[in-house]
């Protein structure tokens, strides 16, 4: 079936915008809550929604069944390096030619992955079987909304419901080929529509877990705590936490300074406090920003830099964590 023929229930049939305190047209109590009284959509929500599971769920499940590991990259705070880390993770894992990697960018209002992976300006192709991702290497595919925008500067001014529709299509319609070893899902900051949707839609197919990215200062840890709380509420396993931008070594005098001071103990302390694995810290390196801007692989050019070693250590720890978990399951 062509993707466009599948109707999106949550969007197309509502008569009016969702009111305040709307439980969400997809929720089980849609049309039945107090807030639904008097809403023009009440009848639609209450009667026309299929009772029981969403029929798209099985399509999503089918589509995701070719993927071995699904990892979410999360952080409550913006600009801590979620996309940077997703791209590093993608490059690092895809360095092994036998491993197929996919990267999905769910940051709809501010997509950065295409630029960082050097796929800016590409477009997604639609075929009979679905949308094919943009391949930046033989074994590394990327999907992002920026491949669908008419102009790179155009703003995507969408409310939550519309974003959910696109996320569902990303999960349902993107063709990852016959087999994919890793799907890395980059998310926007916060704990809102995108996060709820992706966890709901992927629940059946199973998520391996979440990688949490933070920076050392308390202002950032504060938001990250909220994200961890979200993971616990949503039953997502936390694979570990990585502390980005911790420390900076001056290229001139080699003096180390802590730009974002870990006044409350940083990521390590947070991990001890909440009992989650600490995967490591990655220092600031101006060359990372440069590599991301030009969409080049950081490891190719600066394989021996301390930042590259630190990132690779984190990637190894993360993969160990995932694969150990898989073995446990198979026993």
């Amino acid at each position, binding site marked *: 079936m062509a993707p466009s023929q599948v109707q999106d229930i949550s969007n197309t049939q509502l008569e009016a915008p969702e009111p305040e305190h709307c439980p969400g047209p997809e929720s089980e109590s849609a049309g039945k809550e107090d807030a639904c009284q008097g809403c023009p959509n009440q009848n639609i929500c209450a009667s026309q929604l299929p009772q029981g599971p969403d029929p798209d769920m099985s399509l999503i499940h089918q589509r995701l069944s070719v993927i071995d590991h699904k990892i979410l990259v999360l952080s409550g705070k913006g600009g*801590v390096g979620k996309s940077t880390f997703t791209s590093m993770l993608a490059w690092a894992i895809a360095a092994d030619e036998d491993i197929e990697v996919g990267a999905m960018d769910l940051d709809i*209002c*501010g997509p950065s992955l295409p630029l960082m992976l050097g796929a800016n300006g590409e477009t997604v192709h639609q075929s009979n079987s679905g949308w094919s991702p943009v391949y930046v290497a033989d074994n590394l595919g990327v999907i992002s909304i920026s491949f669908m925008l008419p102009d790179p*500067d155009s703003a995507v*001014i969408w409310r*939550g419901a519309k974003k959910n529709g696109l996320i569902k299509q990303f999960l349902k319609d993107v063709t990852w080929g016959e087999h994919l070893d890793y799907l890395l899902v980059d998310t926007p900051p916060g704990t809102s529509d995108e996060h709820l949707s992706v966890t709901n839609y992927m629940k059946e197919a199973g998520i391996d877990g979440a990688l949490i990215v933070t920076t050392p200062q308390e202002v950032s840890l504060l938001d990250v705590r909220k994200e961890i709380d979200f993971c616990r509420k949503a039953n997502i396993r936390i694979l570990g936490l990585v502390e980005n931008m911790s420390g900076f070594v001056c290229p001139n005098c080699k003096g180390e300074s802590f730009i974002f001071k870990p006044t409350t103990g940083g990521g390590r302390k947070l991990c001890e406090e909440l009992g989650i694995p600490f995967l490591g810290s990655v220092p600031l390196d101006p060359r990372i920003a440069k590599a991301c801007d030009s969409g080049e692989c950081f490891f190719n050019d600066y394989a021996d830099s301390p930042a590259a070693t630190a990132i690779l250590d984190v990637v190894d720890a993360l993969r160990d964590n995932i694969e150990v978990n898989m073995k446990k399951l198979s026993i």
Partner: protein
Amino acid sequence: METETIGEAPVSLKNVKHVILILSGKGGVGKSSVTTQTAISLVNKGFNVGVLDIDLTGPSLPRMFGVEDKQVFQSTAGWVPVKVYEGKKQEDSKKGNLSLMSLGFLIGNRNSSVVWRGPKKTAMIRQFLKDVVWGGGDDKHLDYLLIDTPPGTSDEHIAIAEELRWAQPIDGAIIVTTPQQVATADVRKEINFCKKVNFGILGVIENMSGFICPYCSECTSIFSSGGGKTLCESLDLTFLGNLPIDPTFVELIETQNDKSKGENKSLVDLYDDSPLKPVMNEVVEKILAKNYPSRI
């Protein structure tokens, strides 16, 4: 529905002279830091300033101003924002008052997450603009209301644009960016958003532009350099200035009101000695020089 409010400015803005939004498409570029510093700089000039934090899932401003443990009170007129600084009450002080409203004050536990979909966020923002009593206390008006926003162009932004649609004239938006291309790409989207919803743009601040090594004073551009200026030139916007990375500012925030060190000073007073103060002062002067008319 909103039909009955058409044509009327939100109730809470009736005592507010100027409204400034702080926007950026990208997260973590320092919207909240810039909001904090703009607020303090305006307070230093003797204005009464209110700050509204509409980042609902990641409110940082209570922490920034060191008022995380304070609470919002309900009065007959509505919600009374938290008082951060009262310059008007101190003798021989020329500083103004500063108050803050954030969802952070309404959440019981600082670790718990606010997992809300769009409609609920929209309702919350609408309530903020309807129910908060700005300019309570001795002064019956607020000179500046700064609105700090979350990253992106989504529910919160549509909601605030809808609410402010009838509140013209508002001064406009300060756009915050960091120098690298990844950030300016998102910021361009935000500028397009502003154009679509008729927010004027006061100018662009480039934050985190360069870091001066404390050992050798060498300036390193950690996140490249010049992105903000290039952006302004290509889109014909006012460039408000470069803010360097200053670890001591982070330290100021973390150590304010620290009684253990015998220093019980608020951030507004501590900021007097910050190297960022003159830079930010210049930015604020540039905004004030535009001489926007007061709303009331």
